[in-house]
């Protein structure tokens, strides 16, 4: 796949269809890829990588890239195309300046899951028939591929590209996913249990803002939490309340716009399952206002900028199961 992508990118660069290519760049180790812009065939051949670790969603970079001159080629995985569409819908990306090549999606791997098995000193990771052969400083280790899959890929919602100019490989389908299972499990707990669960999770937050800054739905020029005029700007959560507030407000701000790409949880250095907050909103929206998938198209109205006269009252919250 990597070869096919490099070949196509070189062709498009050579015939002048695009000026730049956004993809992933090889790192120091087997897994530390960095999203990068390539401008020449040499760079592509030397550094371009597409493998089991290229999970990063590059669609948000297109906000910055399409503000520049010239056209850019973007390689988008199925989940990335949803973010892409959502950004088009919000007029954040200039569609004319992007040439989208759809590429197959995951499942991608999570190096932290490999390390959590006690495997350290990782030098290379090879996938042989869904068994990972991991060469380390302390000898060779093996583990099943499935146990190292990123959480966001383990509950993949779709293998279908919702936006592309051309595809490399086959297009897939929207999947029946189990992505709401954990949300449901939490809903069925008592309020005290839920409170304890979230306090345990959110108290780990170091307010690095990685979740916000990686999020393709978070494209405000100046975030309310960075704006000294907002009255709630803060650089650190000085109290547990501020930990809660940041994550509630962030999830609320992307409610109805979050495509559930799972980047927030992937980048969290403290492994907080932030996607559960977003999925709670998605689940509520689906149940109360009808099925809606942000980014599935570029024209429909978002649930929070829409209404019907017979919407339910907030008292539905009170009428639900246990407290």
């Amino acid at each position, binding site marked *: 796949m990597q070869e096919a992508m490099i070949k196509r990118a070189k062709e498009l660069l050579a015939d002048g269809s695009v000026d730049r290519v956004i993809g992933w760049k090889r*790192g*120091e*180790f087997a*897994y*530390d*890829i*960095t*999203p*990068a*812009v390539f401008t020449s065939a040499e760079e592509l051949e030397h550094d371009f990588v597409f493998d089991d670790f290229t999970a*990063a969603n590059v669609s948000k*970079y297109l906000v910055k890239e399409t503000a520049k001159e010239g056209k850019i080629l973007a390689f988008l995985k199925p989940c990335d195309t949803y973010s892409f569409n959502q950004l088009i819908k919000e007029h954040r990306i200039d569609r004319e300046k992007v040439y989208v090549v759809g590429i197959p999606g995951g499942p991608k791997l999570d190096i*932290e*899951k490999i*390390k*959590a*098995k*006690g495997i*350290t*000193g*990782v*030098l290379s990771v090879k996938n042989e028939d869904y068994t990972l052969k991991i060469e*380390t*400083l*302390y000898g060779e280790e093996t583990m099943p591929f499935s146990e190292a899959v990123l959480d966001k890929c383990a509950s993949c919602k779709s293998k279908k590209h919702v936006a592309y100019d051309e595809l490399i490989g086959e297009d897939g389908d929207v999947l029946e996913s189990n992505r709401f299972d954990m949300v449901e499990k939490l809903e069925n707990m008592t309020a005290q249990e839920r409170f304890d669960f979230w306090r345990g999770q959110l108290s*780990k937050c*170091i*307010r*690095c*803002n*990685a979740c*916000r*800054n*990686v999020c393709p739905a978070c494209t405000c020029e*100046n975030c309310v939490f*960075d704006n*000294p005029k907002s009255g709630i*700007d*803060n*650089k*650190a*959560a*000085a109290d547990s309340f501020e930990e809660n507030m940041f994550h509630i407000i962030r999830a609320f701000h992307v409610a109805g716009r979050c495509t559930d790409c799972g980047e927030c949880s*992937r*980048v969290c*250095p*403290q*492994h907080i399952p932030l996607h559960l907050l977003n999925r709670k909103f998605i689940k509520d929206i689906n149940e109360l206002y009808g099925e809606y998938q942000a980014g599935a198209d570029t024209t429909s109205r978002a649930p929070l900028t829409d209404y019907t006269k017979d919407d339910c009252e907030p008292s539905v919250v009170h009428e639900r199961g246990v407290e």
Partner: protein
Amino acid sequence: MLKISKSRLGELFDAVAAKQTLYIPTDREPGAAEYKKYESGMELTKELNTVRSAKDFFFPQTENLADFRIDGKNIEVRDIREECGDFVVFGVRACDARSFTILDKVFLCEPVDSFYKNRRDHGTVVTMACSRPAETCFCQTFGIDPTSPEGDAACFDDGESIFFKANTEKGQAFIDSIASLLEEGDTAKLDEVNAKTKEIMAKLPLAKLSTGNFGGDKLNEYFNSDKWAELSEACLGCGTCTFVCPTCQCYDIRDFNTGHGIKRFRCWDSCMYSDFTKMAHGNPRLTQLERFRQRFMHKLVYFPANNNGEFGCVGCGRCLAKCPISMNIVKVMKALEEK
């Protein structure tokens, strides 16, 4: 050398915790360790290092500096400094131990930061030598020997026993306080372990990384390098690298209105943030490129320029492991060195 069998480590922790607060690195979840206040039965992690560094003990993420109480037209300023109790941090790695030397240079030079000093005075750092360095480790680049860590007292693990060695008076006092649990032991096996660790150190992927091309005199060479644009291109501008870093020491001082008074507190700041060092006139670093450059120039050029050549990095590898886009000091150093 004095030692204790690993099976009796719990007893040792209990004995220490009976006299003062003890913090040890323990597993929060598989693959993620953090320092926690020791409670009986808590086990030492098998992870190489904690997600957050040990700087938190001396330079916490947030701390209150003063309270202002407003009563009618009167404002009362309250100094809320408290003498902190004695505490022991156990299991600090060599890289983090060195970070305290770096933080000391910042906080203990005039004017002395009394909050920091208070905690430094009351804290005893007990380090633990490494035997299984990870691929992300590059402490040797900064002249750190992980088989012989600094700190008040150092511990060494030969697989069966933990050996103790004092580096300072405080460390000697710590060892004396637990002397009844320790016994004299033979270090032959430990020497073997250390030799093996050194072999691994030489084979680490970053073993060849050197600071030779960096230092206080490289300002002009690197500040205007055209590499910064490419390096900072993918940077998200999050603060992960700075917040997991054991040596990042920037902070901001802010006031919080509680409704019945003001709390003046300080919190970690990150040079990656758009409002870093924002002043009345605006912000001196307007683009992510400038902010990104600031972080690495600080560690590799500005800090050594002001501190007799000491670099502002200890090679713990946390930023390598945690950066969401895997851009880090190693990649920056390698890119800048390329001619």
